[in-house]
């Protein structure tokens, strides 16, 4: 019997496949397609201490083998999540990882304080690609000190596993990973979206209302694999890998370069069955390859 269960920083999952924050809502919508209990975990759409309306204007632009989004983390807030969504998710058999967002250390602190101590939350994922409004909109995740500061403030307010979601828009993602590990992060997830832009030559305007947006999809997989591999060599804490996973093979590639878990992002958009197809596909591959425990392939890249 092949073992597909993994444990990510104390978060036990029956298989390594999660759905990435912002691509799967809070689990409701996908109930129309399959029982989400088939997944290892769900990383719910990012919640902030207070509701966010998100960005104005066009929020989605298609690019070659990918897409840009400038949704702006629209969300109903932590309280609404706890009241309306968490109770439903508790009934499901999967790890509920709550993604948190904030515009200041205080907002992150407020969110974690509201979330801490509620039954049914397996762990927290902290999005540090949000602009730090006090530092001129510079993203927390692009500076080791700022990233560490958020980590520390969240860490001290909860006993839940804390996973820091790293931004790829940096010179050295290994440096950021080391900084959050030193500040007490239990794990890291990467990569968040690459900052990009799309232009409409007819109007000579940016397509996105927000001018720039986050690039995701198969396009970013080569960059994501490289960064997961670099971070795997830089830190001891487990990694949840993501970036353009649309097939089981993609997911296995991320595990080979060092990811303990994987997250399906906009692959959920283009085919609602992507995540469960990846779950089944990984199982098939393990059987075909005669791998009895999935943990054997984590970081199992053969070099030289």
């Amino acid at each position, binding site marked *: 019997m092949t073992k597909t269960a993994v444990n990510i920083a104390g978060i036990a999952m029956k298989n390594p496949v999660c759905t990435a924050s912002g691509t799967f809502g809070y689990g409701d919508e996908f109930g129309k397609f399959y029982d989400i209990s088939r997944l290892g975990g769900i990383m719910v759409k990012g919640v902030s201490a207070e509701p966010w309306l*998100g960005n104005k204007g066009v929020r989605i632009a298609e690019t070659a083998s990918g897409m840009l*989004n400038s949704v702006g983390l629209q969300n109903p807030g932590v309280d609404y999540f706890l009241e309306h969504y968490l109770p439903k998710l508790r009934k499901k058999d999967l790890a509920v990882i709550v993604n948190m967002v904030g515009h200041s250390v205080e907002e992150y602190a407020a969110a974690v304080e509201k979330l801490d101590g509620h039954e049914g939350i397996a762990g927290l994922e902290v999005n540090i690609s949000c602009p730090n409004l006090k530092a001129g909109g510079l993203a927390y995740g692009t500076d080791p000190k700022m990233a560490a500061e958020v980590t520390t403030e969240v860490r001290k307010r909860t006993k839940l596993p804390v996973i820091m979601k790293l931004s790829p828009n940096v010179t050295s993602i290994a440096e950021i990973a080391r900084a959050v590990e030193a500040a007490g992060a239990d794990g890291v997830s990467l990569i968040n979206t690459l900052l990009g832009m799309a232009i409409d030559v007819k109007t000579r305007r940016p397509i996105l209302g927000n001018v720039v947006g986050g690039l995701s999809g198969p396009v970013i997989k080569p960059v994501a694999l490289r960064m997961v591999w670099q971070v795997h060599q830089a830190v001891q804490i487990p990694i949840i890998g993501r970036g353009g996973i649309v097939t089981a093979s993609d997911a296995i590639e991320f595990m080979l370069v060092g990811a303990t878990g994987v997250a399906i992002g906009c692959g959920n958009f283009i085919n609602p069955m992507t995540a469960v197809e990846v779950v089944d596909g990984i199982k098939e591959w393990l059987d075909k390859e005669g791998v009895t425990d999935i943990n054997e392939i984590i970081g199992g890249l053969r070099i030289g």
Partner: protein
Amino acid sequence: MVLSAKGQVLQNIAVQTGIYEMTISAPEIAKSAIPGQFVMVRPIYRSFEPFLNRPFGISNINAVKGTINILYIIVGKGTDLMRELREGDDVFLIGPVGNGFTIKPEQKNIALVAGGMGIAPLLPLAKTLREKGVTTYGLMGASKAAALVGTDAWQENGVQVQIATDDGSVGQRGFVTALLEDLLNKEKIDFIYCCGPTPMMACTVEIAEKHGVPIEVSLEKRMGCGIGVCMGCICKLKEADGSVKQYRVCYDGPVFRGEEVVFDD
């Protein structure tokens, strides 16, 4: 029940300059679809490029044959590839998605108001209304005769069709909303269904409210996923308490009660 399924192209023909109609074999979708719902389409089944699926209102539902039709106009990469498809080609489908039009038994006289390609979801609706034996008026607005689609299908379903074109090349010169004014002045209409460009729908809703006729509109927005999770197709609705909230066109709509929609773009 929403499905993601492989559909097979049965026919893919030009019905106007630059406008095509595709007949797709998709039995399960055809079985459960109702007028006003749409499908997400990926033209090349085995490729993720173009990356996002395209939304198309279902323009015909044939549960018996297990087929659905979509109307599309060539605007870019995706529709350009769709045009290339031939009988026997596979397409990837998600559908039926969205909420269809609501049809109440007490409705006896109905007006359909369409603008351009917006007629698509109003075609299967006309079929359904005919089965209900109600009197249906179809008001169609287009830029010119060469941009006119669907009115024949309306006629076949017993709809009393009136046309308005910007250049007067067919029907009355001017906007379809003028036709609606006249109709509402002449006839007692119980309900209006509308789909078309945003300004045209905004104006139609205004007229409907002035005449006290309830109306449903089907909104169109750039969509990322079509299944309610990407937050790309946001629209604003007035709440009972007067406040304004954000909704998803793909999941909470695309059909909304006219009076609640905030037409701000």
